[in-house]
């Protein structure tokens, strides 16, 4: 089955497509049968002894045996461990209510910041942006966010400073930006110096030297969603030449 799945890597698949095990005609008694393991990523699900596609998109493969469906989506579903940009909407007692674009609001305890104690409360107001990661994120419970990692350090998370612009993009673009060798990110580095925070819920915060530059970067990222690599590089080059 591994080979049948591998054949279709790079093809567009639709929900309902399946991959089934084909029983071998002759089972050799001498040669040991290798057990194949296929790790299913998002968009693939196991149904009995078949692999069923449940999202429409392109099938991708990573060595040695991970397969997943790359699909375009704007609606974010929280998952444990993902870091997102949230907006603080309410302060109730000891927790902040944070909106991250999901179906309900997440809770963020005020003790979940680096160096926070009952006496030292973090300086967080309503309407502030926070960069946090999910501690609890499943469909049965209210999602919970924290701004520290397991060792108690902030690790880049916490409240945002002033300035900068927040805008929304699709989840696919966010994954492309956060990939280890991201072409978009390297192209962006050649433009203006800027500060960029990318949340996995499709929100990006950018801050640059001037309002104009910030707007340019925001517009470039939003248009980079639907461009091929060549078009994008052309556009970036045009902007660069316009600047210098």
């Amino acid at each position, binding site marked *: 089955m591994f080979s049948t799945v591998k054949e279709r890597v790079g093809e567009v698949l639709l929900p309902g497509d399946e991959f089934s095990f084909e029983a071998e005609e002759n089972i050799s008694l001498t040669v040991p049968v290798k057990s194949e393991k296929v790790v299913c990523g998002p968009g693939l699900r196991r149904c009995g002894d078949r692999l069923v596609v449940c999202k429409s998109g392109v099938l991708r493969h990573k060595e040695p045996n991970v397969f997943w469906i790359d699909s375009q989506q704007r609606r974010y579903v929280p998952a444990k461990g993902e870091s997102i940009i949230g907006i603080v909407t309410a302060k109730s007692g000891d927790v902040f209510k944070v909106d991250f674009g999901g179906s309900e609001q997440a809770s963020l305890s005020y003790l979940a910041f680096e160096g926070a104690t009952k006496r030292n409360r973090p300086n967080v107001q309503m309407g502030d942006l926070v960069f946090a990661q999910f501690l609890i994120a499943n469909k049965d419970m209210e999602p919970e966010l924290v701004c520290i990692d397991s060792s108690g350090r902030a690790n880049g998370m916490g409240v945002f400073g002033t300035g900068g612009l927040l805008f929304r993009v699709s989840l696919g673009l966010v994954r492309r930006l956060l990939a280890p060798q991201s072409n978009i990110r390297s192209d962006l580095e050649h433009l203006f110096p800027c500060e960029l925070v990318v949340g996995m819920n499709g929100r990006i915060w950018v801050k640059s030297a001037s309002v104009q*530059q910030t*707007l340019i970067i925001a517009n470039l990222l939003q248009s980079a969603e639907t461009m091929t690599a060549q078009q994008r590089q052309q556009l970036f080059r045009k*902007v660069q030449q316009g600047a210098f």
Partner: protein
Amino acid sequence: MKDTPLSNCERDFLLKAIEEKKRLDGRQTYDYRKIKISFGTDYGCCFVDLGQTRVMAQVSCELVAPKESRPNEGIMFFNIELSPMASPGFEQGRQSELSVKLNRQLERCLRNSKCIDTESLCVVSGEKVWQIRVDVHTLNNDGNLMDAASIAAITALCHFRRPDVSTQGQEVTVVSQQQHSRWCLIHLFSADLLSTCSTYLLVDPCEREERVMDGLLVIAMNKHREICSIQSSGGIMLLKEQVMRCSKIAGVKVSEITELISEALLNDRKARKAGGKCGFAESMQQDRITALKKDETPVEMTDVTETANGIIQKGEAAPQTVPSPVLPVPGVGQVGQGLQNSWGLEEDDEDDYEEEKNDNNVVEISDSEEEDVVILNPEVPEKPK
């Protein structure tokens, strides 16, 4: 469902940008977004795209008994539906404040302008008149629903064909819709939507800009540059010269938009005469109406040269960008610069820690997946590209 709240950082940025006369998508302060008009298969069905804002208008008619006080006049009925498809904040069935406001504004604009001669809708005086019903559905809200709705309503009314009637004594028979005379709209107008953000005027706000505005001024004007209705909401104080400026802008925009509407109607009429299929089922194949299709974004670049030259001339070294993870201490990875501690605590440990960090050699690990890692000990951190 509730709308996404507006964060402080967005509000501050928008206000700052407006002060510098910059808008989010690179428009000038008095520019409209791109308007696209397309028609459905039936007469009287029209889609209007104002940037990302999308509305659909449908006109229908019915023979009814007239009102007691006006036996010679037909009846016009307007309705704007705010569907949850347009925005998560809209709820189905509930009359929100915004929906009441939009309905009233549209009705006032269209009735006061007398764009339709209601006496021509009379069939049998005192007994049968036409009731024309205009339903506007909002499909996507990206700001300025009022303008999009009024353009859609007027265009749909222009596009609509009323069936002919023949009366024989007391009987009234409705003849099929294809053959009859098309009524001509006497007036076309444009509602000019402006907003002031603390003394700054913007035309055609997008959704983010609508959230930060203080007040709204709507001017409905017909193509003869007569003002049909003016409405100001939000409790802002407008100067006389601001109102005059707005009406001048409205005058300019009216002619542009009227031209656009007439062109769209002409194209549609030609297409129908030529016998080609038209309507939105066809538009999908031609990629005119598709959900995922996006127009190329034009990027505002006029000021970039001066700004960039200014920055270069100041001669400051660009701030460091640290793209790959940095190890200040083995075992701890840092991406980004991190934030300053904003709690205002006086701790002796802080200062010592800072000095310690600077003394350590910074170890950079490359992004490659090879097992051997080359450790660099640079004296001076790498300059950004």
